[in-house]
């Protein structure tokens, strides 16, 4: 178990270096010489100034390998420079104060998706072609095709504007300071309800479909037949023997779908004006705040890598076959 985790960890190191390299390439994507960035009208500083700042920051006047070396040593020290925006605060600090919100949102979303998707998937698999199955199938296809930002707009119109039940932006009401502790929690939850609803919608469709698929395959296995044959009640056969095995691939899919979920927080956060990393990213892109953009990119992808790693290790923990297979040299 420990060896397997160590092995995965070692395999992740080249990926980590790769992340820094791709991000480095992104800086060089600009047409013409690297410093000649095409700035939009929205930038606060003039093109020349930005150009100078960029050349200074990323040593763009030095040879490529020197540039990359410096970039790498700075990333290792988590030094992403200072923001180009007027406050000129360190990038790490800016990201640090926004990370918790994004993490909280994503973890809650993930939990909700798993908690709802598993029973839905099991339900539609055990009653294949039933009314329930058909309804969820329609839901899945619609869920896949619904743009999350559109769903967000519709919910804002319905609950925020028409009914006025829920706040549609930010994390706290204006009168936050005057509320009691429990009212503050209630207020916070109310602000998070719509964003979480939007973010879970698409993922829920995917997962319940996947769960159904996985379950359908498992219930055809011989060991389910034998569990039934030895007279176990259906509840135990499905709830214990089948479910445990059907859950296995879900762990992997959960890991694989993480980048999508985290990417989705860009849209959700900017629509609902939630001060998280996604919103920071969009603001930075509009302000051409390159240090923040690069810092965001590196940190988010590293976090995704770590989460994938955790999913892999968890998978090997719940499914011994993976560990044994790995030891035999099969990947």
């Amino acid at each position, binding site marked *: 178990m420990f060896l397997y985790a160590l092995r995965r960890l070692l395999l992740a190191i080249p990926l980590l270096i790769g992340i820094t390299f*791709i991000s480095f390439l*992104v800086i060089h*994507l600009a047409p013409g010489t690297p410093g000649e960035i095409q700035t939009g009208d929205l930038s606060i500083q003039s093109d020349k100034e930005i150009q100078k700042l960029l050349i200074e920051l990323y040593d763009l006047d030095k040879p490529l390998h020197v540039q990359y070396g410096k970039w790498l040593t700075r990333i290792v020290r988590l030094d992403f420079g200072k923001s180009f925006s007027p406050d000129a605060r360190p990038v790490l600090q800016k990201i640090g104060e926004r990370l918790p919100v994004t993490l909280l949102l994503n973890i809650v979303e993930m939990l909700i998706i798993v908690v709802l998707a598993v029973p839905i998937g099991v339900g539609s698999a055990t009653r294949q072609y039933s009314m329930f199955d058909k309804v969820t199938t329609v839901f899945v296809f619609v869920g896949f*095709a619904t743009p999350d930002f559109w769903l967000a*707009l519709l919910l804002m119109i319905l609950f925020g504007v028409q009914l006025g039940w829920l706040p549609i932006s930010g994390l706290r009401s204006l009168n936050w300071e005057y509320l009691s502790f429990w009212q503050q929690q209630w207020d916070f939850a109310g602000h998070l309800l719509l964003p979480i609803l939007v973010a879970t919608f698409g993922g829920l469709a995917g997962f319940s479909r996947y769960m159904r698929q996985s379950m359908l395959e498992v219930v055809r296995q011989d060991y389910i037949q034998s569990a039934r044959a030895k007279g176990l009640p259906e509840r135990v056969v499905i709830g214990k023997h089948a479910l445990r095995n059907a859950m296995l691939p879900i762990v992997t899919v959960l890991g694989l779908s993480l980048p999508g979920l985290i990417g989705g927080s860009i*849209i959700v956060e900017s629509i609902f004006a939630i001060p998280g990393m996604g919103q920071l990213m969009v603001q930075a892109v509009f302000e051409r705040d390159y240090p923040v953009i690069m810092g965001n990119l590196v940190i988010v*992808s590293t976090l995704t890598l770590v989460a994938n790693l955790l999913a892999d290790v968890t998978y090997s923990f719940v499914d011994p076959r993976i560990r044994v297979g790995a030891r035999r040299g099969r990947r």
Partner: protein
Amino acid sequence: MVCLALLAVLAPVIAPWDPNRPDVKKILDAPSGVHPLGTDQLGRDVLSRMFYGARVSLAVGFVSVGIASLIGIVLGATAGYHGGVVDATIMRLVDLMLVFPRLFLLLAVLAFLRPSIWTIMAVIGLTGWMGVARLVRAEFLALKEREFVVWSESIGASAFRIVWRHILPNAMAPVLVAMTLGIPAAILTESGLSFLGLGVQPPHASWGNILNEGKDAIEIGWWLSVYPGLAILVTVLSYNLFGEGIRDALDPRLRQSAGRIVTRR
């Protein structure tokens, strides 16, 4: 779907109004007989803008998937055919690209480029080839051991000929399905970017940026937010169903595969 394509191609003919002509007297008019889907903040006809938006969205979908498939096929074929170090290198690259949350990567790249329809297409294509590469590689790994390939090798056919004439055509079925399913994904990505204001730039209409403008008028003009989103939903849904249909038609065995999230039975 064919209807959608027709609407997009015929946009200049059937659009009742000029999509970019503002009319100060008709700002944010509700849907009516004259303007079936209402007008926006500048008094432009929403229906006409949506016809033109369909062109942009479909074009971005097709071109970016074309780019992605090309890269995916070339890299996947190289990896699958050569195996060994080449394969390992390319597959690590695929793993690496999959670690990046796509939207973050897209935004970072777009921050350095001037947004236009072409950069959007290129960027979506360049960040979306990994799935196709994996599929093609898997097909190649299976196909290159088959008798007809071994036979052509034995009569001295060049590697290029074997790959191009013998293996690739046999590997195309799943790629075709992946491409069909890639188009709606690209459309969703484009509309998401345009919605954030970082995709197709005004005055060009795209479903995403009509929605973006609609967001600002959310309290008065619900029609600006509802219809373009509905258009995206219907388009994506029809491509998804079409893709699933092709999958079933081309190869019934694929229905059994658990590799994809959506699989109809």
